[in-house]
């Protein structure tokens, strides 16, 4: 096989489905020296290397009064990391579902401070928390303050979709300083040398955008998606999560053939906006988890 990292992919089947099977100390996310030991990337690498396909579900912070329950359901269903969106007024890379979710959360009064406070309430969970939001919220009080607040809230990763690698210097320094992994995004249009730079400078994982488009469910994954994942894994040992448009267990399995895992966002938020409770979302993710763990089933 052409896998440059020489892992035994089949080993994933032997793992328990629940996240606590790997059980890293949650105090790791609070480590004052930058948290290399228990940071996001360490955790993801470990699981990946153990042959597990990674699953990172997404929830818009503040979408409901008890939105953190969704994060708990994610954890219970076997999430390897949890992405929490801090809603922004102008989510230019999001499709209609997450736009609507952001708008609804803001209308409910969601604020960055409030969402981070909610994260702190998830301190007992044994799953890394990754915050995603747009530049303007990161820069409002400066990336140093923002990353410090993330760390304080217990988040170990950060995704900023409108922050390409060329503009990322200060935020990357701030994130590193706070012990937060700033994950960069790569797209099917990214040329080879640039892809190498992104892979090198990304922390936690590389977020491979499956298609030229916005977040949202799609009926099928295009060939560009897995091709991109393959290109990145050919360049770097860092875990690669494929996102955008993954909404069914079948798509997740397909995506995970070349990538180390998947991000599932709009497919969840569409259900949340339709009124699905945390246990229903949990059931949806459990099915996806099972498919990832046993793609032949």
């Amino acid at each position, binding site marked *: 096989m052409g896998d440059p990292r020489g892992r035994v992919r089949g080993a994933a089947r032997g793992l328990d489905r629940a996240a606590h099977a790997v059980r890293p100390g949650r105090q790791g996310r609070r480590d004052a020296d930058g948290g290399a030991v228990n940071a996001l990337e360490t955790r993801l690498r470990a699981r990946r290397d153990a042959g597990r396909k990674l699953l990172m579900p997404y929830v818009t912070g503040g979408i409901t009064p008890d939105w953190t329950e969704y994060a708990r359901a994610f954890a219970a269903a076997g999430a390897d990391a949890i992405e929490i969106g801090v809603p*922004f*007024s*102008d*989510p*230019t*890379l*999001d*499709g*209609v579902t997450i*736009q609507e979710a952001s*708008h609804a959360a*803001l209308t409910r009064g969601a*604020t*960055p*401070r409030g969402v981070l406070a909610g994260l702190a309430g998830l301190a007992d969970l044994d799953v890394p928390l990754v915050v995603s939001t*747009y*530049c*303007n*919220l990161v*820069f*409002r009080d400066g990336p140093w303050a923002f990353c410090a607040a993330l760390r304080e809230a217990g988040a170990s990763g950060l995704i900023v*979709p*409108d*922050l*390409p*690698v*060329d*503009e990322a210097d200060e935020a990357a320094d701030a994130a590193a300083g706070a012990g937060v992994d700033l994950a*960069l*995004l*790569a*797209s*099917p*249009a*990214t*040329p080879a040398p*640039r892809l190498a730079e*992104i892979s090198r400078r990304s922390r936690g994982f590389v977020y491979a*955008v499956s*298609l*030229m*488009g*916005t977040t949202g469910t799609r009926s099928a994954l295009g060939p560009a998606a897995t091709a991109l994942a393959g290109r990145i894994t050919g360049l770097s040992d860092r875990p690669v999560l494929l996102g955008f448009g993954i909404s069914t267990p079948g798509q997740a399995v397909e995506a995970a053939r070349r990538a180390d895992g998947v991000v599932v966002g709009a497919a969840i938020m569409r259900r949340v906006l339709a009124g699905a409770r945390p246990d229903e979302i949990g059931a949806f993710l459990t099915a996806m988890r099972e498919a990832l763990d046993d793609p032949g089933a």
Partner: protein
Amino acid sequence: GRFGDHGGRYVPESLVEACREVEEAFREAWADPGFRGELATLLAVHAGRPTPLTPAWRLSAELGVTLLLKREDLAHTGSHKINNVLGQALLAARMGRTRLIAETGAGQHGVATATAAALLGLEATVFMGERDVERQALNVFRMRMLGAEVVPVRAGTRTLKDATSEAMRHWVGVAGSAHYCVGSVIGPSPYPYMVREFQRVIGDEARRQCAAALPSAVPDHVVACVGGGSNAAGTFAGFADTPARLWGVEAEGGAGAALGRPGVLHGFRSLFLQDDDGQIREAHSIAAGLDYPGVGPEHAHLRDLGRARYVTVDDGEVTAAAVRLARAEGIVPALESAHAVAWVIRAAGSGELPAGSTVLLTLSGRGDKDVATLMEVL
């Protein structure tokens, strides 16, 4: 792609390559006398350039200053927007793109884009907030008559800000075949610089015309309205190396430069109206074209440098200024342009523009589009 601390290219990774291609193509085209000549011809034979410099005889006498109006309202499609879209459409054709994408608020940039697309045989897709689609039905029809597809945007506040976001989202998926024709000196690099260059024809012409019209050759003051700020940027470019004082006039409710705070939106770092959390505030202005919560990065930079000053006027001053200019000079200005007129009237009264000053004011567009609005408020 930087103007001091401002500008940059804060776009999704999927658009970085597209922006880079635009930048490369623009730099190459702008250095090509063939391209420059073709654009100059289009501007002359199709868009009606040079536009005149009109001495505002009666208003000057009333105000005690010498007021010269740069008449972008006489350009084809009714505003300076055509200067930029002809440049970008020509560039898009050169890049092999077959379609233009644009955002529009009141519809002026959309109409200009549809016009340039028709002229050059390109398709056009214009994103417009659903609320603006309803308010500006005539411009929507004009765009469709010119062959453009108009896509109503139902997200957010359903106005210009959201139309811009939606145009960017759409561009992500089609960047290989479509060119995003940004309508002002905003957006990711190279747009603020490129649009400024396409609009500098205003300032370059005005500079020559002032040299012929004024004993001092250069006016003491150069004034233009600022939404995103393209007519102001183009005007200022012609006077950057002169002692003229530069004034950008914003709407009180959309004063990115005067009242905004640093931030990032729509691909660039600049000054934006936002709350303490960093959520972008909705702008409010009687002039749809100034109804934008940010300002082009070059303006933020000029403000930082102190090279230009940014002031605001309120809706009441604006409508009064529109009526006053109409009655004094027989020119019904766009409400955007009336902001600049309103400030000159106020500043001449307060002495901020001393008696005897010479003032160049860019009248960015004509007021036909605003008559329905004025009928409601006057």
